[in-house]
């Protein structure tokens, strides 16, 4: 299966500070989750892939077009990309419809009738179908977030890049967004710091920290890295990465040496993620 998008030794520096170290990876069809702490390089990676940001070195290929090569190739790639940045500063005086209409023009929907139908379609997808005529200033935070996602969906792009799409959404809206994303045909790359999103949604997980990918594999593979290392007992485990008292009064410990009277429990994505983070100098399961 050929990759929808690929990084070939891509790196990015802001001034002299490296934001992304030389990274190579291929993205195929399905939902890929990018997990990592703030400042790990998630946004940098997504902006590079979206063509909003040029890399300092390396090659980025999207749908067979080398975006680092020529302007013409970049434009071809952009016709196949939908990108939703982490934060969108909306022009507040515009209506939701006018905003999407404008971005659809920028995405080369020149025919007015077809463009308007497409705008209605993406409004419906994010459940804003009855808010089209409303001024953006009057929309709630969650509605604005969904509007930002809607603009990325215009034209059903082959590669959809969403930076923290679930931030600001309530649980119900998050669930409906998951439903929407899992139903899309192309490749979806989302960054998140919510581990539930990853376990609920992603076929593949990338864990990124300090500008480098620490893990690349399926959710099952990620969970396997933490198997046997999460314990529940009356007391905290010594040397644990994280411990907390659960509702049952028992203490859940991630990592460390288990106390004799504690039992092993199934790890969550969050446990695995915390353990990975604690071992930043020994990357595991990284496929080049």
């Amino acid at each position, binding site marked *: 299966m050929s990759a929808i998008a690929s990084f070939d030794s891509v790196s990015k520096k802001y001034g002299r500070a490296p934001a992304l170290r030389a990274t190579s990876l291929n993205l195929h069809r399905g939902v890929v989750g990018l997990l990592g702490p703030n400042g790990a390089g998630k946004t940098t990676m997504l902006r590079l892939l979206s063509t909003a940001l040029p890399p300092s070195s390396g090659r980025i290929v999207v749908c067979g077009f080398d975006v680092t090569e020529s302007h013409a190739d970049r434009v071809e790639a952009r016709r196949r990309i939908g990108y939703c940045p982490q934060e969108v500063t909306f022009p507040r005086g515009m209506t939701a419809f006018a905003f999407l209409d404008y971005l659809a023009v920028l995405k080369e929907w020149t025919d007015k009738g077809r463009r308007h139908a497409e705008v209605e379609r993406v409004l419906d997808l994010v459940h804003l*179908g*009855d*808010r*089209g*005529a*409303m001024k953006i200033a009057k929309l709630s935070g969650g509605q604005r977030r969904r509007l930002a996602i809607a603009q990325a969906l215009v034209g059903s792009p082959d590669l959809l890049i969403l930076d923290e799409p679930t931030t600001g959404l309530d649980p119900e809206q998050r669930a409906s967004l998951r439903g929407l994303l899992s139903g899309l045909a192309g490749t979806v790359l989302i960054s998140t710091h919510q581990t539930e999103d990853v376990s609920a949604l992603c076929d593949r997980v990338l864990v990124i920290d300090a500008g480098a990918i620490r893990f690349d594999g399926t959710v099952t593979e990620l969970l396997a890295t933490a198997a046997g290392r999460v314990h529940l007992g009356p007391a905290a485990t010594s040397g644990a990465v994280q411990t907390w008292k659960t509702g049952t009064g028992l203490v859940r410990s991630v990592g460390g040496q288990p106390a004799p009277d504690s039992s092993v429990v199934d790890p969550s994505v969050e446990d695995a993620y915390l353990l990975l983070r604690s071992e930043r100098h020994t990357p595991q399961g990284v496929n080049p």
Partner: protein
Amino acid sequence: MFVQQFSDSELLGAIAQGDEAALRELVERHSAWLLLRLRRRTPDQDLAAEALHDAFVAVWRSPRSFRGDGDVGAWLWGIAIRQLVSRLRKRAQPVPMESRMLSALSPTVRSAEDELLVAVEHGSVGDALRSLSPELRQVLQATVIDGLSTREAAHLLGIPQGTVKSRARIAKSKLREQLISLEARS
């Protein structure tokens, strides 16, 4: 939101606030009968559908032109029939109905209708109407039932304004004669 529980005039209030769900409910409630009735005014089914579309768009743009007296149904029909007239006038291009046109629907239309309704239900007008020729009946329907002006009726029926006026005059006097003679007989 449970728009289904609202009355028509409450829906109009919500529409004035920019609530699309309220307009959707209004469309749900009134599309069918308005469409059926529009089809009785034009043989062109597409034109009837277009007029209906224009009517709801006009409602969305000026929902406040409903004055709160009378029935929303009557008000809606007044808008729909005028949209049809306006479509007929410029078949290529819809003319957005202005709000003053919407509010020009006078309550006298309703009272004329009411009177007639009472009369129809009493049966005597039915006989009187039957005695009129189709052309005269059409004019009467446009001017009295639909409440159109002479000019609007002329566009709807595709006849000169002078003809509308004269036919309306003849129809009314014939109707009066018939009613009087019917009264006298009974």
